[in-house]
């Protein structure tokens, strides 16, 4: 038989259950913390390696990461020194809130002069078969950005006098993609190209 529902019994039972549960969770959290961190860092590193030319530093190291707060969210800049020409380039994790399915996140690799090297889609919730063609695994849409410099290449769909060919029947996703890349470029130009020399996390984050 269940115990009597007296105030003392109820309080005690709930206390014991919540206490034991928290203890178990704390234990599992400690146990999995390193593995989860390792997975996160590995994912970032893989992404950076995909969008940038070969480099020989560690862009995800805290000294090389710059966080920029724009339009209500954070843009991450991962700085790298290229192997061949020793110039400073960066992978910029950018976002847009204008996707058909809301927010999506891209990682854009820029070369020293601002040219787009490669773009990787980190996460999105665009419509399968339509808007999800922004992902290079599905469609060639994002390839048209490669090797273009946003200084001369207008990041807008051709309907709006831009230089980008939109995905058929997915103008909203295409426009959002341009918006995300433009946001990445703006941060890259301000924080990496203009400064010439990288100053890491100093100053910029506290100003926001």
């Amino acid at each position: 038989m269940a115990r009597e529902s007296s105030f003392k019994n109820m309080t005690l039972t709930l206390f014991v259950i919540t206490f034991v549960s928290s203890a178990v969770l704390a234990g599992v959290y400690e146990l999995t913390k390193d593995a989860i961190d390792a997975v996160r860092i590995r994912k970032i590193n893989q992404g950076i390696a995909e969008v940038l030319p070969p480099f020989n530093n560690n862009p995800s190291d805290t000294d090389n990461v710059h966080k920029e707060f724009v339009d209500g969210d954070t843009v991450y800049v991962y700085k790298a020194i290229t192997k061949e020409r020793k110039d400073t380039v960066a992978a910029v994790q950018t976002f847009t809130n204008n996707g058909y399915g809301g927010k999506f996140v891209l990682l854009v690799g820029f070369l020293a002069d601002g040219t787009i090297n490669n773009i990787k889609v980190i996460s999105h919730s665009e419509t399968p078969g339509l808007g999800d063609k922004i992902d290079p695994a599905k469609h060639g849409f994002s390839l048209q950005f490669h090797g273009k410099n946003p200084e001369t290449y207008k990041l807008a769909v051709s309907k709006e006098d831009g230089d980008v060919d939109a995905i058929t029947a997915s103008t909203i996703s295409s426009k959002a993609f341009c918006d995300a890349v433009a946001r990445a470029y703006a941060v890259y130009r301000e924080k990496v190209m203009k400064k010439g020399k990288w100053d890491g996390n100093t100053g910029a984050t506290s100003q926001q």
Partner: protein
Amino acid sequence: MGRKHRRNVSTIIKNMLIMKEKIQIVLKGIFKENPTFVLILGMCPTLATTSSAINGLSMGLATSFVLMLSNLTISLVGKMIPDKVRIPSYIVIIAAFVTVVDLLMAGYLPDIHSTLGIFIPLIVVNCIVLARAESFAAKNGAADSIFDGLGIGLGFTLALTFLGFVRELLGAYSVFGYKLISGDGIILFILAPGAFFALAYLMILFNMVKKKLIKK
């Protein structure tokens, strides 16, 4: 010698009877009380996660794991919990197990976790888990409760995998990620309406087969 032998035989028969009983509990969850097609419980994860067979399978397995653990725990401690705080206690226990599964998956199965991540916390409010805790585990012993969890979990997993399989086949022309015909497929089946269509027709099919088998 003879008596000992007889005793051995009777224990074997007894064990076999127990086994049969447990298997029946498991089978009941898969077929007669299939959570998706018969009890129609847990529709939210069923519709949301079955856009491909592998997603359905992983969601089913994660739910089964939680179901077995929560059933076991509740069958052990259920009698000590006062009636009036029964539901909050069950929810805390279930939520703890779900979080454990979530953390373990994030650490050791990152690929599956990145597709299922947002649905894992939903297991907490999956009515199958709470319903089995309330209607079975709280009234039955530990062993029976584990087998009930296993049965219902397998029933859920099979239903989700099959639903995912059908939707993936029609919507993307692929099976477990392996592309059969090139092209886009009938995209509708990957989207929300396709989930309802596929579920409805599978439910009809399942119940037709079930009726026929029972008649025999």
